[in-house]
């Protein structure tokens, strides 16, 4: 019974990683850059939702919607100010800029919100599900997170495959110069990608902080790195890959903590990553990667 409980917790944790990883993988797939500030956008999203919900007393749904809108604007602003001028620069410069943006966001949050952590109230009011005479309890957050993650993944896949903008994204990801020749606005496409990634970050922050209520300026850093691992694990650039990578990562993390060691959970996660990359360097669903970082 406890195994099932661990498994469900793993899937729930993995679903959160998956939603964050979707943001990483979209941006990488299309703009060919690693947006290391993605985890910190989640943290900012957490603070925005916290402010509207707990300080100003708005309803959870409205607060999350405001969070999504403001995070989208934040993502667009970051892209416009920090990344767009570097479109032709070496990829290393963009990478360092992304790390700079990450630290900037963390320190701004520290300055504005202070060092004391906040306790995030859950935005989800679904009651927990009690099974097998109370030996197995599934929290309301888990009941919402898992289906929501699947819905997001499916709709994102359909959007990319079927819509005009989505196909524009594929075109930009395959060959930027050719896409320009075909009349696609590369800058606009990349901006839309950032907007979607940041909106997903806001959703991820609502789900993540509902389960793990501690909100501080560094709250986004570790989940950001784990989600990046999930994206690489599943094959960076692939939408279903991010989903599979995220969920597998969550399950491996929880199960190894449960049955091997609570302290070695992270070590095992990264060990699995190394093994997967040795056997299949492009990740589980990865396409052939060009030499860019």
């Amino acid at each position: 019974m406890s195994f099932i409980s661990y498994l469900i917790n793993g899937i729930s944790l993995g679903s959160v990683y998956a939603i964050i990883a979707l943001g990483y993988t979209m941006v990488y797939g299309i703009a060919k850059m690693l947006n290391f500030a993605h985890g910190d956008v989640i943290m900012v999203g957490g603070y925005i939702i916290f402010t509207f919900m707990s300080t100003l007393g708005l309803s959870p749904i409205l607060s999350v919607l405001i969070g999504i809108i403001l995070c989208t604007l934040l993502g667009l602003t970051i892209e416009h100010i920090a990344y767009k001028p570097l479109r032709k620069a070496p990829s290393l410069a963009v990478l360092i800029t992304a790390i700079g943006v990450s630290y900037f966001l963390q320190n701004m949050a520290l300055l504005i919100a202070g060092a004391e952590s906040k306790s995030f109230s859950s935005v989800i009011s679904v009651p927990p599900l009690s099974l097998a005479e109370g030996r197995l309890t599934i929290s309301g957050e888990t009941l919402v997170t898992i289906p929501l993650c699947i819905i997001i993944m499916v709709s994102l896949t359909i959007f990319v495959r079927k819509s005009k903008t989505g196909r524009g994204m594929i075109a930009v990801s395959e060959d930027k110069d050719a896409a320009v020749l075909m009349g696609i606005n590369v800058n606009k496409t990349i901006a839309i990608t950032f907007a979607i990634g940041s909106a997903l970050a806001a959703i991820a922050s609502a789900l993540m902080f509902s389960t793990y209520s501690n909100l501080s300026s560094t709250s986004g850093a570790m989940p950001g790195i784990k989600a990046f691992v999930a994206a690489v694990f599943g094959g960076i650039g692939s939408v279903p890959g991010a989903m599979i990578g995220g969920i597998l990562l969550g399950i491996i993390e929880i199960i190894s903590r449960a049955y091997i060691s609570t302290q070695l959970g992270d070590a095992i996660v990264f060990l699995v990553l190394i093994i997967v990359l040795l056997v299949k360097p492009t990740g589980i669903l990865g396409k052939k990667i060009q030499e860019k970082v």
Partner: protein
Amino acid sequence: MKKRIFALVITLSFAMLSLAACGTKETADGNEKFYIGGIGPITGGAAVYGQHVKDAAALAVKEINDAGGINGYMIEYRFEDDVHDPEKAVNAYNTLKDWGMQILMGTVTSNPGNAVKEETYADNMFMLTPSGSAPEVIQYDNAFQVCFSDPNQGMASAQYIANKGLATKVAAIYNSSDVYSTGIYEKFAEEAKNQNFDIVSAEAFTDDSDTDFMVQLQKAKDSGAELLFLPIYYEEATLILTQANAMDFKPIFFGCDGLDGILGVDNFDLSLAEGVMLLTPFAADADDAKTQKFVEDFKAINGDIPNQFGADAYDAIYIIKAAIEKSGVTPDMSISDITDGMKEAMTQITVDGLTGAGMTWEATGEVNKAPMAVVIEDGQYVSAE
């Protein structure tokens, strides 16, 4: 060229001389009063600790001076800010030394204490830390603690749980990447062998995985634990309480002084903390006359209800008084002679303070006192007795 360097050296050495002259300013009237200095954070992240220490110690100094001083000698008291930073703590120490400090009541926190202890040891200056709980702070023989050292909190917790018969099956969750948490847990586990309860589950986490406690809680729940020991800081504890509630696991939660502050977390659902017990030497609601008078007087100065740090500092001044009276040292003696007298007296005195009755000290600097616990009821700390 050579000439120029020579001139530079001469100029520099003159500059050094004049600076040095500033440093060795004669201590004013150091012969008639005891100069007690205090160091702690009164700005920055840990400011609330230092402010309470500063005001509570000032209160004790005023009481002693009003009552005629120590053996007839008045106390001069000065407090310097260290912003909870080791480097600034050493600067504060040097400032106080220039002022004429003979006895140090500090530091408030452990990391600055580790830096300052080297200075006090080199100067052979008596050092009594009210709340610096790391064992390293009292590594040298001139340093003593008012609070329990970290490992001793583990021992005291185990004894308290056993003596009060709180549980027979105990689970623990601790942070294996933190010395405070690991130190307490190891001593707790060691002492548990001598006590009438069993540790049925002990799980660790690290700073990098301090958000998801489902696995640790599930294991504790499966092991049938009636009490969950949490020698951790309150930030992780709020997560553990929330997640335990989500999985319907309701043992007694028992922590150490790291949990002090849990009621101040912004937006934390205080109903989850209901019934949480923590080992702390001081409860402001205790109904003995001494505590009530202290709380009353402290509120008049500071405005807040004093926390355990304030109580530790108030006791620290009275402990210094007792050690001076026992040893018979006088302010006109050298700092080193005062220290030698006081550190010998420390092992002989017994002090009844706010944070414990019949406190005695080992030569190592550790305090012996009975552990006390508080329990959270209706969002307030209440004595568990």
